[in-house]
């Protein structure tokens, strides 16, 4: 069997959803750092978002399962912590999908620039921590809906 190209593998990985935020892929999230063949073994380097994020092991399993389904059986998953993951690595496609899903994408200013539901700029922080380690809890003062904000790190 011929080896799949690295580009092809990236495409497959882009179809693996994040287990906590299934509208974006693990590639959108920026946690897949490298894909490379060494002989007939495929190495995929993955970086954790937050060091204690419980989704990390599920993500590793999902990546392995997806690649096996595409016929790759020798897979080495490498955890790479340096350089540390940053929300700058979120793809533009991922940012747009987050907002569509109701999660405000990260902003360098440290808070959401608008409510992902109604677009109002009148928003306030409820808590620095939200439903997952990567999110904070905010509220819109116009439509009064609570929403998650993807923290900038």
């Amino acid at each position: 069997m011929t080896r799949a190209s690295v580009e092809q593998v990236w495409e497959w990985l882009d179809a693996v959803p994040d287990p906590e935020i299934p509208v974006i892929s693990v590639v959108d999230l920026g946690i897949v750092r490298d894909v490379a063949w060494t002989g007939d073994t495929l190495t995929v380097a993955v970086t954790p978002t937050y060091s204690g994020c419980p989704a990390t092991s599920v993500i590793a399993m999902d990546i392995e399962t997806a690649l096996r389904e595409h016929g790759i059986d020798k897979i080495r998953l490498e955890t790479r912590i340096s350089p540390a993951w940053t929300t700058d690595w979120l793809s533009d496609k991922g940012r747009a999908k987050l907002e569509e899903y109701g999660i405000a994408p990260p902003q360098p200013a440290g808070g959401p620039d608008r409510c992902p539901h109604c677009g109002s700029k009148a928003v306030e922080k409820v808590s620095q921590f939200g439903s997952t380690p990567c999110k904070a809890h905010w509220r819109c003062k116009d439509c009064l809906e609570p929403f998650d904000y993807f923290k900038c790190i």
Partner: protein
Amino acid sequence: MTRDEAFLQFLLRMGDNTLILGHRVSEWCGHAPVLEEDIALANTALDLIGQTQMWLGLAGEVQGEGKSADDLAFLRDVWDFRNVLLVEVPNGDFGRTLMRQFLFDAWHSIMLGRLMTSSDDRVAAIAAKASKEVAYHLERSGDTVVGLGDGTEESHRRMQEALDYLWPYVGEMFASDEVDAEMAAAGIAPDPASLREEYDALVGRVLRKATLTIPDSRFAHKGGRNGRMHTEHLGHLLTQMQWLQRAYPGATW
């Protein structure tokens, strides 16, 4: 003491601090005064446990006996732990828990900042990762200490009591010994005493804003980070934390 022996002690100190504090904070899960605080405490605990995996994972590697982070966390007894006493004291009320968190976060953020330029790449990488998380911990614990200290009469009183109770545990974070001297000589970690000035400035600024008074005494309870004498509370904590691995050795998910 060889360099590797000192390095192992240093890594156990870092990992045991985050492990024991992470466990303490997780005791709040399902008990915090409001849902948002419950979630924030659980998230903080989760970050600390994640950091523990990195520190103790590296400790196992340096030790070279084939031990994993889990082995070190769950199969050592009280006298082998190297955390400072501050992190093992019981939670007390919500105010004391947040005061302890703030006193630790302030030290932790300064320490990690220095470790980012460690001569050991692995230490620098863990510090870079952890410091991003700890910046959020410090922002939150600092804000909460100000909110409660400069709050109602009761919240102010409780925060002052928490500070009076916890302050004698602060000094141990800056006590240097031969392990620290060896780490500083190797450029792996700073001499803890050198962090004190920055710490006092940061903590002083926040506590002033919180209208709280730092006790005059510099008396410090010690014995945790060198394992000479832990408080009676650590053993009780371990009976909870290590119960499953002790009762069912080798159990996995």
